[in-house]
């Protein structure tokens, strides 16, 4: 244990002596946590709308007014023909076109039905899908309004409809920030954990100091612990800073206890640090280690269920997500922060992450050689 004391002293001195590391460890995550959640908004706003109105009636005018007053759409183009309207889409001026036929008002009043045409620029699938859906919903509302006005009319019978009401549990206001911020925090802690630890060892390889370690009686597990513990502490500090920001800036306070999150995070970090150490035993240069950990964390992050639900991934991708430690921490984070889950509720997650921790660290220790073949 005396040996470990010297290793830790040395490591902490080096870490805190490097001015860049404080910026990277504390200022970068802070900025990311302030900026990213605003970008990771699932609502689509400011959809650019083009209208081709062949009718020029009171009804068509009211309808366009209703659409633009919803706040989701901006009327950017008003063309006399569909062809011209399409040009606006091609030049990226608008995202979708609503075409109102010539006899819209007459048909609506006389025949009680009329057809509208909507064309959507589907390059951005999310925007197209949501934009189309919003528009349909607004048109549906508009349709209902007209019918309510006409309800006295004996010819009209109100359409029987099934009304579905839903109540959103755990995140009643559907606040996407409460959903995203804890997840982004997981990514930050993961990236700092894995890539920093791996870069640190590879740096010793590049400097040649690792040879001096290898020729000393330091045991492999001592060396690995000497690298793991400092970054474990740093990553937990970043987690703490993250929680402070989440509370001060976004007002997010876990429904469950911080203790549950930290208990899980402690094991989780051993797992991702183990992964970082493992990568470092293979990489020879910091460049290699950076690229590999960039690649790995990219896959881990995108397949973690942070941005997209794992349930909607294809079967094979769900399997990858299952072998991704990040997935479990994001689940735990959301369970504890939004639902108030306790240690008992996340016991399966704990066992799985213990498995990861054992697996990566054993592999790292086995693969770290003080003597080469």
């Amino acid at each position: 244990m005396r040996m470990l004391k010297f290793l830790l002293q040395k490591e902490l001195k080096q870490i805190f002596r490097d001015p860049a590391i404080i910026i990277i460890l504390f200022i970068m995550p802070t900025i990311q946590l302030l900026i990213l959640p605003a970008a990771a908004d699932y609502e689509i706003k400011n959809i650019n709308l083009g209208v081709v109105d062949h009718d020029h009636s009171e009804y068509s005018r009211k309808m366009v007014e209703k659409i633009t007053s919803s706040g989701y759409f901006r009327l950017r183009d008003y063309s006399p023909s569909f062809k011209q309207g399409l040009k606006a889409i091609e030049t990226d001026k608008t995202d979708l076109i609503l075409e109102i036929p010539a006899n819209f008002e007459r048909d609506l009043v006389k025949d009680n039905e009329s057809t509208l045409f909507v064309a959507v620029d589907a390059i951005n699938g999310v925007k197209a899908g949501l934009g189309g859906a919003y528009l349909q919903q607004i048109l549906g509302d508009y349709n209902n309004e007209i019918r309510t006005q006409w309800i006295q009319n004996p010819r009209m019978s109100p359409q029987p409809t099934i009304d579905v009401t839903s109540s959103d549990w755990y995140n009643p206001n559907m606040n996407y920030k409460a959903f995203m911020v804890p997840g982004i925090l997981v990514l930050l802690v993961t990236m700092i954990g894995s890539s920093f630890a791996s870069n640190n060892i590879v740096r010793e390889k590049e400097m040649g100091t690792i040879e001096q370690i290898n020729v000393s009686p330091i045991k492999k597990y001592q060396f690995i612990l000497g690298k793991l513990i400092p970054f474990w502490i740093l990553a937990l500090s970043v987690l703490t800073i993250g929680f402070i920001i989440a509370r001060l800036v976004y007002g997010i306070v876990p429904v469950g206890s911080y203790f549950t999150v930290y208990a899980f995070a402690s094991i989780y970090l051993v797992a991702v640090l183990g992964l970082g150490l493992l990568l470092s035993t293979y990489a020879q240069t910091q460049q290699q280690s950076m690229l590999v950990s960039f690649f790995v964390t990219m896959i881990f992050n995108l397949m973690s269920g942070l941005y997209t639900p794992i349930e909607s991934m294809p079967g094979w991708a769900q399997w990858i997500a299952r072998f991704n430690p990040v997935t479990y921490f994001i689940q735990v984070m959301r369970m504890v922060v939004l639902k108030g889950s306790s240690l008992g509720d996340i016991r399966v997650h704990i066992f799985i992450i213990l498995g990861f921790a054992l697996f990566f660290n054993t592999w790292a220790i086995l693969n770290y050689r003080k003597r080469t073949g």
Partner: protein
Amino acid sequence: MAKEKVITAHDLTKRFGDFVAVSKITFDVEKGEIFGFLGANGAGKTTAMRMLCGLLMPTSGQATVAGFDVFKQTEQIKKNIGYMSQKFSLYEDLTVAENIRFYGGIYGLRDEAIKEKSAQLIKQLHLDGQEKTLVRALPLGWKQKLAFSIAIVHDPAIVFLDEPTGGVDPVTRREFWGLIYEASARGITIFVTTHYMDEAEYCNRVSIMVDGRIDALDTPANLMKDYSAASMDEVFLQLARKAIRSGD
């Protein structure tokens, strides 16, 4: 009277694929000796040294260092040796005192011993007042002297020095050899590789490696006599010209 042998090597060989880096080298080093290990670039000096230090697994042959087997007992060997690699390997972002403390600590020195050693070492190297200087800021010659002193901070039986004076000015080189003699006087066996033939003459015995083989091994005086040369430089040139391998 046979002296105690601290290094023995018999037919020690290292192959990398088809390439034989070190070919059946056989030699002994006696306790307290300054043993020079010469050879052109790429002759296999560093490879041989790394095998003896337990950093590289030999392919075949036998060798012991401080009485321990280089195949099976590398961890015991590591407790008994010091090593200064070709690449400067102190922590540049730690201070002089911190480096001494760290390396003393990982070799199991007690706190009092570390303190004592630090004071002694700083005095010996005339680094007074520089304890808190980052090693990065020291001139190369000082760095090398410090690295050597730290390599023997735990009083090992043997210290391996891989081209310790590379790139260092003649004055500092002389001072460096002063440190080597002092360590040798304390009973530490010195195993040193070098390119400088004047340094070879400071050694008790030298071996000259050519293409992975040891082609000559004797005292500098005997070697000069055998090769009817006026200096070690000439001996070295005569032997090194036979090399087929090109330097790195």
